[in-house]
């Protein structure tokens, strides 16, 4: 059974896609297979990895019976990381796509068909707390909430928590909150500093790892890469994502899951 982690937040631009992509990469560095699912109807992961609209078939083609699930699982150069892109969805059909994803347990069906191949499945969701986010939460074992270190995000955080609580209570009792990941933190800036102080002093479940605001994300985005893949010195941000992956694995472990032990671990040679 895979650990299925939905990255959710009501606010747009909180860093969901950035976190989903870089976290999936970092989780995979431990040689455990991971799948990154682009559930945002606008195809955010695809756009993050390619410089224009991608031709990758994905969920849209699967939903329309134009492709089998195995045909839309896309291997990456990272070997252990597989992508499930959104597909070539016509933007005019976004509404219909949302209904499909939400309806008939389709997501559970997809996850059920592939989850025994992966240790971690990371799901990037759209902002807002609409049907896709609800469907993702209903099908996940865990959720992670990126919080942009800015006033509006802090004031609206209850909305996201409320939806997580509702889905856990009504639809998916197994859903566990991994925690809040502070993102775009600038401790040298007054507002950001105050926010982080408030967050650390009043909220539980704030992860130890946080992401500073850094230009490197824009550089990575420009090149269509995860931060760990940029050339040159391995960046501090890539290391932070490794720490995040480690922290998440240990939370999953403490919550009762057996993180880090894939059931079919092959024997390996040391020397």
């Amino acid at each position, binding site marked *: 059974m895979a650990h299925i982690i939905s990255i959710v937040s009501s606010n747009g631009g909180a860093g969901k896609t950035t976190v989903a992509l870089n976290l999936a990469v970092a989780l995979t560095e431990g040689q455990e297979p991971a799948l990154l699912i682009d559930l945002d109807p606008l195809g955010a992961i695809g756009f993050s990895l390619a410089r224009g609209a991608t031709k990758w078939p994905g969920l849209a083609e699967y*939903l*329309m*019976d134009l492709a089998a699930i195995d045909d839309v699982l896309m291997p990456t150069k990272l070997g252990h990381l597989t992508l499930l892109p959104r597909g070539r969805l016509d933007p005019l059909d976004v509404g*219909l796509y949302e*209904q*499909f994803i*939400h*309806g*008939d347990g389709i997501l559970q069906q997809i996850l059920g068909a592939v989850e025994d191949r992966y240790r971690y499945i990371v799901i990037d969701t759209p902002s807002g707390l609409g049907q896709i986010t609800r469907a993702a939460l209903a099908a996940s074992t865990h959720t992670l909430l990126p919080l942009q270190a800015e*006033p509006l995000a*802090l*004031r609206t*955080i*209850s909305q996201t*928590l*409320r939806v*997580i*609580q509702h889905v*856990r209570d009504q639809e998916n009792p197994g859903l*566990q*909150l991994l*925690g*809040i990941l502070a993102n775009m933190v600038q401790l040298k800036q007054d*507002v950001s500093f*105050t*926010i982080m*102080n*408030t967050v650390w002093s*009043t*909220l*539980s*479940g704030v992860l130890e790892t946080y992401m500073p605001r850094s230009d490197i994300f824009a550089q990575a985005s420009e090149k269509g890469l995860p931060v760990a893949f940029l050339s040159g010195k391995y960046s501090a941000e890539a290391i932070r994502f490794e720490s995040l992956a480690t922290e998440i694995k240990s939370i999953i472990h403490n*919550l009762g899951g057996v993180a880090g032990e894939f059931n079919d671990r092959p024997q390996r040679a040391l020397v």
Partner: protein
Amino acid sequence: MTDPNAPSYDLDQAQLLLHSLISGIPKPSAMACQEQGELLFTRLQRLTAPSITSLAGPSARTHQNIDQIPMEVPELFTSWEDCMAWSMEITGSASTFVVDSQGFIIASQGDLPERGIECIGAELVCSVETLERIDADYGKLAWIDLDFENRRIAGFVAPTGEEYFIVGLLSPKPHYHQLRTLLERQIMASLPGMD
């Protein structure tokens, strides 16, 4: 923070929710959270969105079968309002209206277009009369279905003696076809008791 102008954030609700989420097991605070949740979040129970079956357009997966349409046959209607509400719901129409045999719209519900709605009544009555002239032996016209490029208007012509009413549906979902017999039966059975 010593600055008296420091912004403050009311995070009680968030913290209560977090407590219930992180502990995993509902604790007394989780109960408080639920109560508070009910105070701060208003549920729109009567506005829950229609299910996928009633919303989706025609496509591979949405092509529906009549037994998948959630539907209960209601009591006989006593008013046009009830009749329209039910017809609109089961057919997924944007709006419904009732036209008398003079062409006047005597009742309507839903999202009616801003322009042109007055004409629809008159045009429908006119069409009924024209179409019934095709051949007297064909009998009375029971349904009109006008499939325009941008809109569809369907109407059931319900006879009452010499007169008739047209129960119109604006932009019904494609599955409305399968419901025609049910609509007819229900409307005809209700007509004698309607005011």
